[in-house]
């Protein structure tokens, strides 16, 4: 199990350090009874708090709730709420850690979100395992809406909103063309709210303690806190809770680091010097992954391994993605080792331009973001490889990439 690190960057909210999984009694002891608030007041509180989504897009949560509620009224179909704990990002552990240690915060938030949008059905989506969820749910006899646990096949795209809605409806866990979007027509053709489990946990606390309390962490422009999965070589990945605005240099040690991967495999590489002063911000945090690349490793080789994985994880539905991502991964592999590069850089630029925005989901877009940031941050290494040498001395794989098959 991933240990929550004793480093405290703020008074703990979602995860109590060193804690064991909380049962319902412990949960109520720690946080008090669940909030009993009118949906209208809840929405206003969420709006005032400035809470944004923790699934990667960073969209204001209250706006999402409002649009689903509105779609429900307009179509006359009771909305569906799906708590998204699928966490397809291999380098991220925050959602499964949260579900392990504080499941009742997530489940409180799920009930609150359901009440706010007027939902008739609730689901909790996770990848395989998490067998304790059913017993956590069984303890909650006071919940107005029963929650069905849905287990998804392990894949990068399983947590994508449309893929999730499709799977819960009985289809494949693959993205769909969102016309209309999932918030208007999703699970069983009803307006569907897909919300990350961490966002739901924050919702549960905001409902209890209010918007002003939520804003005691973070900055006026970016209130609140987020869970991050921190990867430092030589240590187990750990999940930490940090306020927005905290400089990244305080979250992970950057001496001896060449660069930091921020966000996840759809994120960006940033040079360590820049990262040290960068304030934690929802705008780039994505899935909350922060991974330090030591000076003695090759960022291009790491990126090539990730790109290979991303290409294999393409749903294979959209022509540009199916054709472009494998070619991008193949070309980047050439850059990843010292040797002649031919037309690779021009090919990468062309293919990146061709796949961006031309899929049903953002998989190609995120992949292109990673490619471009790698080419910028590791530009010197690309040149070195072209001239036949690599500055890295340690070639062991660093970032977690699931095995094929």
């Amino acid at each position, binding site marked *: 199990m991933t240990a929550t690190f004793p480093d405290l960057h703020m008074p703990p909210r979602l995860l109590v350090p060193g804690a064991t999984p909380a049962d319902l009694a412990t949960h109520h002891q720690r946080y008090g009874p669940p909030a009993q608030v009118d949906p209208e007041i809840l929405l206003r509180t969420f709006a005032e708090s400035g809470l944004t989504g923790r699934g990667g897009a960073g969209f204001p949560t209250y706006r999402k709730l409002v649009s689903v509620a509105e779609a429900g009224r307009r179509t006359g179909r009771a909305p569906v709420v799906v708590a998204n704990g699928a966490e397809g990002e291999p380098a991220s552990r925050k959602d499964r850690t949260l579900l392990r240690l504080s499941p009742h915060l997530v489940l409180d938030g799920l009930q609150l979100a359901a009440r706010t949008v007027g939902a008739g059905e609730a689901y909790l989506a996770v990848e395989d395992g998490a067998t304790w969820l059913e017993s956590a749910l069984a303890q909650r006899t006071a919940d107005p809406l029963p929650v069905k646990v849905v287990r998804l096949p392990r894949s990068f795209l399983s947590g994508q909103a449309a893929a999730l809605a499709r799977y819960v409806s009985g289809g494949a866990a693959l993205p769909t063309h969102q016309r209309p979007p999932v918030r208007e027509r999703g699970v069983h053709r009803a307006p569907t709210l897909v919300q990350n489990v961490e966002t739901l946990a924050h919702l549960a606390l905001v409902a209890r303690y209010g918007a002003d309390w939520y804003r005691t962490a973070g900055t006026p422009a970016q209130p609140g806190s987020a869970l991050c999965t921190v990867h430092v070589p030589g240590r187990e990945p750990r999940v930490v809770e940090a306020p927005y605005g905290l400089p990244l240099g305080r979250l992970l040690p950057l001496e001896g680091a060449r660069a930091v991967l921020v966000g996840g495999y759809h994120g960006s590489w940033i040079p360590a010097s820049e990262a040290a002063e960068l304030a934690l911000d929802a705008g780039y945090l994505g899935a909350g992954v922060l991974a330090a690349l030591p000076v003695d490793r090759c960022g291009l080789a790491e990126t090539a391994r990730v790109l290979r994985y991303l290409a294999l*994880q393409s749903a*294979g539905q959209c022509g540009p993605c*199916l054709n472009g991502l*494998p070619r991008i991964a*193949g070309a980047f592999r050439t850059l990843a080792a010292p040797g*002649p590069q031919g037309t690779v850089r021009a090919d990468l630029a062309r293919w990146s331009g061709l796949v961006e925005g031309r899929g049903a989901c953002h998989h190609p877009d995120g992949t292109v973001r990673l490619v471009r940031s790698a080419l910028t941050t590791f530009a010197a290494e690309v040149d070195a490889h072209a001239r036949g040498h690599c500055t890295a001395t340690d070639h062991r794989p660093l970032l977690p990439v699931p095995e094929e098959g």
Partner: protein
Amino acid sequence: MSSETLWYANRATGAVCLVLFTIVVLLGIAVRSRTRLPGLPRFGTMSLHRTLSLSATAFLALHISTAVVDGYVDITVVDVLVPFVGDYRPLWLGLGTVALDLVLAVLVTSLLRERLGHRTWRTVHRLAYASWPVALVHGIGIGTDTGADWMTWLTVACVAAAVAAFAARLAHAARAARRTPAALLRTAEGARP
């Protein structure tokens, strides 16, 4: 119009239907395989497929009406739509009726394609693969010209064309199924810079 004239017309339109529907099947498979006909724009294949299918249907209507109108054989309007209930050679005629029913389903769903959506349309359109052989067997079984040289050659040519096209269709589907991200990645990694 004498019964003999109607009979000749029925046989002639039957043969024309065989040829036209065979070409329609070939064109349908060409559309699906993204085959470009020489000299025509891409939408030409689709246009031709559609136009010829309507022409073939027109000849089919003639073929059927000459049979119904002809007093020499007892084929009623009911026999046109309901298979195997007629007095005249119920098995072979019935197969013709089955083929017509399938063609009607394909035709109606194609006219309403945009309304029905691609998936529904595609499921019904696959019945076309069944209607062609059923119609062929109908023709061979009931046909008065079976055994005549020209008819035999015509039939052999159409069967050969349809079988070849169907084999190409299966090969295309197999190739498409193999085009997975993993397969494309293997190809990309094999490529030299």
